[in-house]
């Protein structure tokens, strides 16, 4: 069966395959912020505290977890975060 999820690039490949960064929000008030746990020890402690702070300041928080910190986030996870959140904070705790 055809896998329509992997496509061959029709361009000259002079631009990065990933699209450019979104415009930075001027304020986070009222926005949905994703918190991405990269699955490293104690990252959750940091993110739990951030969630409290953000929620207290009127933001909606969604939590996500990478399967492993040793590899890039899977494309499905990146798509889910991008489609549900206005901003994302990634915890690089240790």
């Amino acid at each position, binding site marked *: 069966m055809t*896998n*329509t999820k*992997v*496509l*061959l*690039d*029709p361009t000259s490949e*002079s631009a990065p395959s990933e699209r450019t960064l979104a415009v930075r929000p001027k304020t986070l008030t009222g926005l949905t912020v994703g918190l991405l746990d990269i699955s490293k020890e104690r990252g959750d402690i940091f993110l739990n505290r951030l969630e409290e702070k953000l929620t207290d300041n009127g933001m909606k928080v969604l939590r996500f977890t990478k399967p492993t910190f040793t590899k890039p986030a899977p494309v499905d996870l990146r798509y*889910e975060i991008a489609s549900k959140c206005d901003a994302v904070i990634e915890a690089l705790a240790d």
Partner: protein
Amino acid sequence: MEFNSRQIELAAQEDTYEAMFERLWTDGLPVVPPTAERVRKMLEGTSRLADEIVVSVPPNLIECTVEKIAINAVMAGCKPEFLPVVISALETICTEEFNMHGVLATTMSVGPIFVVNGPVSRDIGMNSGINVLGHGNRANSTIGRAIQLVIHNVGGGGPGGIDRSTLGHMGKQGFCFSENELSSPWPSLAESRGYSSSQNVVTAFTGEGPRLVMDQKSRTPESLIRTLAEHLISTVSSRVVLGMDAMLVLSPEHAARFHEAGWSRDRFLEEITENMMINTDNIIAGSNGIEEGLPAELKEMSLPKFRPGGLLLAQAGGPAGLFSAIIGGWLNGPAGSEPTSKEILL
């Protein structure tokens, strides 16, 4: 087989068609997802190797492989047997002579137009009959589209970027047709340019959208040729002479007037040229209250509308209808674009 092109992974939830729009890979219409499987099948349509560099694509002059062309041909909706025509057509326009960069960048409403001659046009099911300059035939529609997608995706030339056309025209989506060779006693466009009838040839011409010429009453070639000449004189501007070419697409019923009277193709072109001599007094700047026109020093002259060879003639169209079509050109010569032909390598 291994591909040299980068592989782009999309999320399972992501709409493939929307993702291709977001990545600006399209010409405004949906494209077929270029999966490895489809591209592999497309490459079976040519005897050339996938990694062969065939053209340097303007405007960014990017070296382009057969594989990249195949990817864009998949997206355009081509069948594998169309690929050789797409590749050879790109070879005609990515040249100094044709000047695709200029054709793209001009504010005039022109684009590359392709006429395919020879057995391949019939083998791959191209249309030379009813609605020949319109939609509805897969080969006609997708070959021209694939070429434009290569210019857009590989060359980096898109509307609003290097493409500065004030108005554009729908044929810029892809404009390709074949000539009705078998029912005409006259040599084809390709034969008039030095090829034999058994050769497969693509000819590229820079042109605007087609315009109808109606003459339903002429029963003699002498009358009909005057109608055709009268319309051709106004091509692009009735005040432009010699600087721009045109293509005349003669329909079967109009062509029959000349065939039945025993006119040859050469005689047709000679007589139409004689009927397109222009008295420059009528088109000098300021004449008839119109500021556009020729400089005053060219008054009291008789000039032909087109340079020698500047009127290209193709025969195509449905069997009924006393109409032909004119496709106006762009700046000709070394500063503009020359009509360019090439044999198709299958």
